């Protein structure tokens, strides 16, 4: 504004036709103002998505293609060497982006579907529905989720479908709490009452009246939940009860190659190999956290007081 104060006219500004910006344009404007950490985060996330989608074209070898050379050191042929039964580490890392991240996204989405719908329903219906769901969620949340997940996995067995269902169910409790809390404030608004009097059904009120108003906190929560789910699944896979071989997965890759770490003294590269998938996990979590931080800052309007 400062540049053209001389020929600035209030009339022309108010008279100018308001242009409607598309979501993409608004995103670009926000992006230009974003801090470096958020840009870094978005950049990293974009790379992960790219790698996950184009994994078969990017990977030099197949996901579980075995070479007769276990624990091969880093070389031109095998950039990060091979694992304990001779599979190319780089290829498995690339496929891991697809499996590990894909499963975590699917789990988070399912958790949001369950928790979000039930949370909205509890906030709208109130009464015994709300009481019943809230007490149930309290009981589920009283047990640490990793421990609960271990119990459930020991009963139902460890396969990917069970893993997704169990983690999604356990995590939906937190989504439920948040959705219920934020929508309780919206449910009492007049426009919801008007929609009700108009005779709209529960689904309409949920989707068209309440959801748009509670979206920002839910999107931020999606990022944080994703990190949590991602770390939980990685921990379970690391413990050997999550994603099972031969599926390439970062958590189990760390465990499979952990013994290489003893050789770091003689060959630092070999020692670093088991840390690569772990670092891939950590980098994505940091990136998502940065973006969520920026998003929260942007939507809540909170400024750090000096």
């Amino acid at each position: 504004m400062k540049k053209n104060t001389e020929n600035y006219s209030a009339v022309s500004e108010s008279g100018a036709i308001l242009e409607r910006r598309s979501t993409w344009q608004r995103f670009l404007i926000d992006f230009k103002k974003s801090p470096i950490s958020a840009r870094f985060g978005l950049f990293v996330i974009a790379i992960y998505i790219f790698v996950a989608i184009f994994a078969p074209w990017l990977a030099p070898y197949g996901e579980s293609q075995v070479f007769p050379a276990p624990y091969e050191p880093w070389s031109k042929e095998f950039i990060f060497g091979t694992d304990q039964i001779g599979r190319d580490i780089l290829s498995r890392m690339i496929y891991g982006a697809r499996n590990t991240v894909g499963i975590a996204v699917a789990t988070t989405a399912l958790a949001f579907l369950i928790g979000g719908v039930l949370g909205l329903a509890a906030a709208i219906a109130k009464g015994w529905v709300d009481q019943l769901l809230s007490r149930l969620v309290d009981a589920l949340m009283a047990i640490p989720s990793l421990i609960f997940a271990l119990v459930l996995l020991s009963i139902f067995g460890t396969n990917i479908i069970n893993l997704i269902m169990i983690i999604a169910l356990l995590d939906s409790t937190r989504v439920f709490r948040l959705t219920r809390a934020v929508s309780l404030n919206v449910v009492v608004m007049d426009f919801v009452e008007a929609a009700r009097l108009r005779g709209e059904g529960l689904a309409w009120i949920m989707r068209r009246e309440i959801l748009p108003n509670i979206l920002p906190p839910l999107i931020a929560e999606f990022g944080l939940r994703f990190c949590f789910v991602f770390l939980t699944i990685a921990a379970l896979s690391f413990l050997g009860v999550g994603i099972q071989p031969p599926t390439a997965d970062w958590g189990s890759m760390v465990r499979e190659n952990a013994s290489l770490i003893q050789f770091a003294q003689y060959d630092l590269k070999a020692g670093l190999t088991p840390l690569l998938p772990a670092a891939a996990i950590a980098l994505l979590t940091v990136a998502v956290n940065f973006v969520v931080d920026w998003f929260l800052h942007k939507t809540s309007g909170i400024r750090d007081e000096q």
Partner: protein
Amino acid sequence: MHPVTRTVLVRLGYGLLTLFVVSIVIFSAIEFLPGDFTQAILGQLATPETIAAFRKELGLDQSAFTRYINWIGGVLQGDFGSSFSGRGQLTSGTGGVGRSREVADLIAPRLWNTLFLAGLTALIAVPLSLFLGITSALYRNSLYDRTVNVTSLTTISFPEFFVAYILILIFGSLWPVLPTLANVDDTTPFSERLWRSALPAMTLTLVIIAHMMRMTRAAIINLLASPYIQMAVLSGASRSEVIVKHALPNAWAPIATVIAFNLAYLVVGVVVVEVVFVYPGIGQLMVDSVTSRNIPVVQACALIFAVTYIVLNLIADIIGIITNPRLLHPK
């Protein structure tokens, strides 16, 4: 009755109710097993009589209610039943009771190990993170604060095993000063035990310090922004006076909450760290039992973890209530 006492009693009541519900949830684990799981445990060679005897021992011929009463009664007296493993070898007899071990005997020495590790971590992590949190809140937006903040945000995003392996790489491999296998047992002398637990305790400390420090910082900043502190500053009180006389009394509640919450978090972190360092604690026992689907052991470990978690949260709540009279009058 004094309102504080009543609130605390109500909270305790809720805590007991939660414990009851959680015990039912964990107990019902066995209900969801497929009907032929006894066959799977005893092996293909088991005769129908053996299976019948085993089912009788598990109480599967009784109602779920009776079994729950028996189970919880046993648990309260420290009897968690007997392990499923080691039963398959027997082809006759009474369901292989002779070969299997009592769950309580399996757990007791490991529980002590886990408590030792958690206690050691808490001893280092609590004072350190309180110090870091309070100082970074006091000197917020300084270079010191920013460094501590970025470091802790990064550590939070790291999986526990990543931190563990970085430490192993540095202190166990590149510069081998500390043991990477924490194989302690009953006969290990105290100093040796301490030395062997150094790396696991360091990992856990790093993981929970980040959380605890950030929460302490947020709580203190929140407190320092309140009008009465501003008033004290404006009235000309010295910096130390403001902190010791005005801020600290109100800070105990959030700090206690932070500590208890993070000790509860420790309960979960311990599982992964024990596996990384092959530390013989109940976390490792639980993971092994999940892999072999040894349900009685899984149930016992889960119950111990859940009870610790609930009790710690309960203590945090109660400290919060006792030290903060404002919590007594919700809206």
